[in-house]
């Protein structure tokens, strides 16, 4: 294989591009390696064995976990699409007013941490403490609350609310790209509206919708935050939370071999789904080629239905963000978890704020801040190297780079977190003291944020004609100067928006942080989690409220600098 070359030399960008690939490979391989061992890992006391797999597959509990996970992932897909798809259609294909506002709502939906929403929904519909249940019990004189959010279906509903914006973004592009002329051609060819829908519209939309389904399903099977917040306390386990209890058991030594074996099973599932996803995407792209450009989609006039459409969108916003977060805010000031009422209103106080360990919060904030400063820069540098090699060179090695950068898009971050944990514990422990440092978290964040950054930069670089750079070279500018004076200024809008978007996602990230956090590298979200897991719901609510307050100015920054391209690339 020829390496990507420019003017006969191996590009100096290559090592930078390969570094994150190396991380991905190591994180995955170490899980496989650990899964075949028992005993004290990393010492002479460990032996190679298949015992872990026998234990996992022989444990009847795992089948319940698999069943729960499937149930959860399917309901996540269902709720995400049933909300996201119609809103996507409304924004792209109708004359609904206030389209920018819809984008605002959906983007916020992507950025507000799912863990907060899950906390809110625990307050709403938990079988014991959920307000709706309490009201219903009082009202109907029942023994138990009739609604249980702590089931795979209930958690899938909450995660569906969280991922509806993702479904929205994955399918708006399809609606935008689909050429209405194809439908009009069917109508002029004598097909009825129903036949057009069946024979033209749906087959054309099919691959994009299927791709969205697969992608959300992959995200679903690896979701940690929602099932952890709602399910763990009620002993409802999914793949992710099961892995968590295996890795951090309360009453015995962790058996990392078992963690590894479950991880390997998950990797296999993820890779199979990734392959399928890739093939579906390819098919979808083929359809897009047919559509061509230079058309103006005809918008459907909703007329009197505008208010109904907005009512639906508003209802979604209230249900998924407003009510849960308002409740978290309420609990932050309440003496204990209880439904909002006049009586409770009078008892609100700042007492909870005195119970919070501020030293811990301060530490978490410091680490979160470091990560928000470091990770976007690292991700941009690596993504630039990869994109440049992929877009600007003709080596066949670029396909491998492109695939490597795409992989973390579908391989769950949870697995990278476990891989990083195992690497730090058993591979690097004697050489590089990474365990318990914020840098370990940074490396995993880098890997997981890479696909988005790379794709955004790929798109931007494709837009910048290669001859603009070449014109700089023949004008006598060295490569360094050409990059500084020509390429970087042209890339600046994309770089800015990717930087801010990445920083915001780092701020909200919880899964990796929870798996890798110790006393010495805890992040803000991990602080929220640690309070919640220790049944400190009011303290968790206090920190969450603070996080949302800090969040607002960041969002404003995002709005000013680059929502456009971030939305377009996602």
């Amino acid at each position, binding site marked *: 294989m*020829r390496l990507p070359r420019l*003017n*006969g030399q191996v590009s100096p960008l290559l090592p930078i591009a390969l570094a994150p690939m190396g991380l991905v490979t190591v994180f995955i391989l170490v899980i496989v390696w650990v899964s075949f061992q028992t005993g004290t890992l990393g010492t002479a006391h460990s032996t190679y064995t298949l015992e872990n797999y026998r234990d996992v597959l022989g444990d009847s509990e795992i089948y319940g976990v698999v069943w729960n996970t499937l149930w959860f992932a399917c309901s996540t897909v269902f709720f995400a699409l049933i909300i996201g798809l119609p809103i996507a259609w409304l924004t792209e294909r109708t004359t609904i007013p206030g389209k920018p506002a819809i984008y605002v709502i959906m983007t916020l939906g992507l950025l507000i941490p799912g863990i907060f929403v899950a906390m809110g929904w625990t307050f709403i519909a938990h079988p014991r403490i959920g307000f709706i249940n309490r009201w219903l019990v009082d009202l109907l004189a029942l023994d138990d609350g009739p609604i249980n959010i702590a089931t795979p279906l209930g958690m899938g509903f909450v995660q569906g609310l969280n991922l509806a914006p993702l479904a929205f973004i994955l399918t708006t592009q399809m609606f935008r790209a689909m050429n209405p002329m194809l439908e009009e051609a069917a109508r002029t060819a004598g097909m009825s509206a129903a036949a057009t829908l069946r024979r033209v519209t749906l087959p054309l939309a099919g691959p994009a919708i299927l791709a969205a389904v697969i992608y959300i399903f992959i995200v679903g099977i690896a979701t940690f935050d929602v099932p952890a917040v709602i399910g763990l306390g009620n002993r409802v386990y999914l793949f992710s939370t099961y892995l968590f209890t295996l890795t951090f058991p309360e009453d015995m030594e962790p058996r990392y071999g078992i963690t590894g074996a479950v991880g390997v099973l998950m990797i296999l599932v993820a890779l199979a789904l990734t392959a399928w996803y890739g093939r579906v995407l390819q098919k979808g792209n083929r359809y897009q080629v047919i559509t061509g450009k230079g058309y103006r989609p005809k918008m459907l006039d909703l007329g009197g239905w505008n208010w109904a459409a907005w009512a639906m969108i508003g209802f979604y916003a209230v249900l998924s963000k407003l009510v849960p977060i308002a409740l978290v805010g309420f609990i932050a000031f309440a003496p204990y978890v209880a439904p909002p009422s006049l009586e409770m209103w009078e008892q609100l106080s700042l007492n909870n704020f005195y119970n919070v360990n501020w030293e811990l919060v301060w530490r978490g904030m410091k680490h979160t801040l470091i990560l928000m400063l470091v990770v976007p820069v690292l991700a941009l540098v690596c993504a630039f190297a990869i994109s440049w090699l992929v877009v600007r060179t*003709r*080596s*066949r090695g670029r396909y491998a780079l492109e695939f490597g950068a795409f992989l973390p898009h579908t391989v769950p971050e949870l697995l990278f977190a476990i891989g990083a944990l195992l690497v730090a514990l058993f591979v690097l422990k004697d050489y590089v003291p990474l365990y318990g440092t914020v840098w370990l978290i940074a490396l995993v964040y880098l890997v997981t944020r890479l696909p988005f950054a790379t794709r955004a930069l790929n798109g931007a670089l494709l837009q910048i*004609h290669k*001859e*603009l750079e*070449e*014109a*700089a*070279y*023949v*004008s*006598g*500018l*060295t490569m360094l*100067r*050409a990059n500084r*004076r*020509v390429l970087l*200024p*042209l890339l600046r809008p994309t770089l800015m928006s990717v930087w801010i978007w990445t920083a915001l996602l780092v701020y909200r990230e919880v899964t990796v942080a929870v798996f890798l956090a110790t006393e010495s590298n805890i992040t803000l979200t991990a602080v929220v989690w640690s309070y919640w897991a220790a049944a400190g719901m009011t303290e968790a609510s206090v920190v969450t409220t603070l996080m949302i307050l800090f969040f607002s100015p960041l969002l404003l920054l995002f709005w000013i600098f680059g929502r456009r391209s971030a939305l377009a690339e996602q």
Partner: protein
Amino acid sequence: MISIRKLEKIFDSARGPVRAVGGIDLEVAQGEFMVLLGPSGCGKTTTLRCVAGLERPEGGSIEIDGELVDSAAGGAYVPPERRDIGMVFQSYAVWPHLNVFQNVVLPLTEGQRRIPRSEVRERALEALRLVRLDGLEERPVTDLSGGQQQRVALARAVVTRPKVLLMDEPLSNLDARLRDQMRDELRRIAESVNVTSLYVTHDQAEALSLGDRVCVMNEGEILQLATPKEVYSEPPNLFVARFVGEMNFLPARVVDAGRVESGLGTIKCAVPPGCAPGAAVTLGIRPEHIGIAMGESPAGMRGQVLRQTYLGDALHCQVQVGEVELTVKAVGDAEYGRGDTVAISLPEKNWHVFPET
């Protein structure tokens, strides 16, 4: 000034390696305007990019002004920024984040061939005057028309006073009238700065009008290297004859050194040496060389007009002569209608004979 020897370039493609340039030799003299002409994929742009240093050849060597700038065997390589060249790209490639003046100044202030700060402004204005853009210095380039953007690109290419000016289809994105105008200007500018030019195009009219010499290429090989007049009047093979100008072709068989047998009967023409009697050849004659007159004439052949295309300055007639259909170009106000009987004359000296390959 430019000397290319045994230049060979191979690209990797999905279907295996492709030989874009197949070992060509080319010498361009000081001050000469050399045009590389050929269809897309013939290797002309690749050759140009090798001279610029934007591509590295797999074989051969390139010298600019006596300096070896690239040698596949010897390992010598001078990167583009160190070569004494200016280049104009097909996409103009003016930097959209800079204004007109900044575009032209950047090579002088940031390039390897930079000049003292105090002279920069004067030199840039001189280049802008040359391309007649003076007065537009502060305009963002994105506000300019295509033709003006191309002028900026040209000013940027000559502002460092390079020894060699490379142009990659610079006019192909302009509309027809502007293209004619810019063609004349290009020639004027190249002459006034006395630069050696290498110019790539697929447009034969551009090639014939601009070049001191024209190098016709196909599939990575040079098919003809000659003056524009020679290229038009003495194409050495069928490909060049087809590619440059229009020509009628008909299959024929050699009778002897001065005659061939074809669908038009026995035709007197100069048969190239090496074509034995009985060998299959292709006859060619250009539409404007065929004489046409109303009615019948004892000297010519009899033909019938099948259809005609009015071009303003000329009339293209499809004429049926025996079993052969010929395109005839009649200049002036000739008026031939469908079904008219015409006399056709085919001058002996205007026939081209191409051996079958």
